[in-house]
């Protein structure tokens, strides 16, 4: 009967309904279904469907975000069972995400987080106004593959460079890729601070992250 359940799981993601996706995740656990299988054969199918519809111009950003959130909720519900079984979902990479110090602008950063995690990245979203030292500490703590930083002001944008400089000083720069974003961020700026990639929107950010991971 799991085929039926997987179909419902995919549909819950397409509908962007977190309540239903969590309920189905719990049902899978109760029915002793492997959570990894539930994710790959159920929920991910839904994410891919929405992703394709979006790429074709048939779905819009809110649908993509809601699918991402329903996916995240379902995975969170499955996590205790995965821990119990000692299994782990294969992720594309670990991303430490933050809006830099002195800057409270959140939406672009959060959108990038949702898109990255829906695409299979493990995202550590540190929120807004995050000090350089905290970002560096988190990079070390989780052994991050990518640091992604947002800034909306020309006066806070300089913090993106500061983080890169500290990564460099601490000998982490080769290990960690750096992505930057935010309205004032231009190609010129990205080259000047020697970041590895940037995108003007959240969809593009996923492609950049994949490229940086060699995917």
């Amino acid at each position, binding site marked *: 009967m799991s085929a039926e359940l997987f179909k419902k799981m995919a549909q819950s993601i397409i509908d962007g309904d977190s309540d239903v996706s969590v309920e189905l995740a719990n049902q899978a656990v109760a029915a002793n279904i492997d959570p990894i299988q539930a994710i790959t054969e159920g929920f991910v199918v839904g994410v891919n469907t929405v992703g394709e519809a979006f790429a074709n111009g048939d779905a819009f*950003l809110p649908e993509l975000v809601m699918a991402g959130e329903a996916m995240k909720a379902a995975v969170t519900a499955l996590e205790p069972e995965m821990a119990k079984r000692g299994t782990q979902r294969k992720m594309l990479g670990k991303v430490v995400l933050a809006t830099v110090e002195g800057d*409270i602008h959140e939406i672009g950063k959060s*959108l990038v987080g949702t898109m990255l995690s829906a695409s299979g990245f493990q995202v550590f979203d540190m929120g807004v106004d995050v000090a350089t030292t905290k970002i560096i500490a988190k990079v070390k703590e989780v052994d991050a593959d990518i640091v992604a930083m947002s800034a909306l002001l*020309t006066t806070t944008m300089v913090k993106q460079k500061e983080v890169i400089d500290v990564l460099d000083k601490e000998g982490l720069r080769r290990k960690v890729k750096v992505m930057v974003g935010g309205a004032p961020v231009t190609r*010129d700026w990205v080259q000047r601070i020697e970041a590895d990639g940037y995108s*003007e929107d959240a969809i593009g950010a996923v492609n950049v992250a994949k490229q940086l991971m060699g995917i």
Partner: protein
Amino acid sequence: MSKNIKSITNPKVHLDVLTPAEVQKIHDATLNIIENVGVRFPSIRSLDIWEANGATVDRESMIVKAKPHLIEAALKKAPPKYNLCARDPQQDLPLDGNHVFVGTDGCGVEIIDIHTGERRTSCLQDVGEVARVADAMEEVGFHWVALSAQDTPVETRGLHEIKAIWENSTKHLQTESIYNEHEARVAIEMAALIAGGKEALRKRPVLSLMQCTAPPLGHDGGSLDAALLAAEAGIPTGFMTMSAALTTGPATMAGVLAVGNAEVISATALLQLAFPGTPVFYAAAQTASDLRNGAYTGGGPEDFLFGAATNVLADFYDIPLSMGSFATGAKEPNWQAGIENSLSTFMACVSMSDMLLGLGFLHGSRIWSYAQMMMDAEIFSIVHKTMQGIVVDDETLALDTIAAVGPGGNFLSQKHTLKHMRDVFLPQFMDRRPYNVWEEKKDDARDWALAKARNILATHQPDPLDAKLSAELAKMIVAEEK
């Protein structure tokens, strides 16, 4: 160059975008939001003021909830009319509900270089040069800081920018790029120096301050503290919402208006609670995010409607409005730029928004183009002429002249024609030449606009700022850098 400033006044064209009942409904919804959902004020000084006035303050979340009567009573203290003053008093701008003035837009990060045509990072010299060109243009009433002076220290960048503008223009300066207490304090001292003292500044504010809200339903702490300092000094201060449907606002336009209104009137009320009667203005540039990528659009029917609707709200509160128009999302001066900037400006003018922002940008206020600046000015002139409407009286009906020409004649040689021909709009940048003339060079508006800007930049000398004052301003900035 002309010292005249062009403004729309006594319009004959009107549009009812919201009924009084609809405005009341938006107002009621706004008060409901402020009372029950609350607005975040991450500034100790702001929270203290709210608490002292009986609002409910959560110190942890910094969310303020205020009763309707507190907000309404505070807003009533705001002056309905005042002047934005200029270094040259002839260029003062009456914000009296019967004038529409245009400013330069801001604050961008790149510029299409006027000489090379290459896109590059903006610097301090650009700030001064844009101001100098704007100083020469009758369509420009006041300045915003058009470009970020990215070759100056971050801590005093906003101060370098306003100094550069004062040195290159006699017109009013409204800065949108000072959003912290320490720069605001120095900026006010600089303005006082130019006005001739603190009391003189209060009477003749040569500087005004615009702060952005942090939608949905929030503010930036630095912005609040800067605004409170300005309000204390009697400098006109406004809060701008850029609430965007789908992302920082609901998908529906009425909801976006309510969310943005809650941000703006709560902060405006705060300034009135702290300093009753201080000059304030409403500011807005709502939009709809792009359905596909969430981007800031800088145009589209939603923007046009917000442009017309917001002044109806500002009129309801009886305070002046600074409204975002122009600012196309187009990457080049093209079809999209023409449509977006014309319609947004028309719609904001038709409800008589007091200040319009503004001229000169591409790619959603990010890339400055002198050609776009000139063409935007022409758009304003077209709207200006359109808003004058059709005058119907004996003179304009021209019955005697019509009788004199009779069937089959023409009106070219009539005295009446000679008298009124200059009422007919003469564009600077529209191509009405014969086809074969166009074919020779295939040049167009963009070329002519750029040539005009180059000519102004090469020839226009603004009335200089007293060298002593200039040196004093520099000293104040240096002191702040130590």
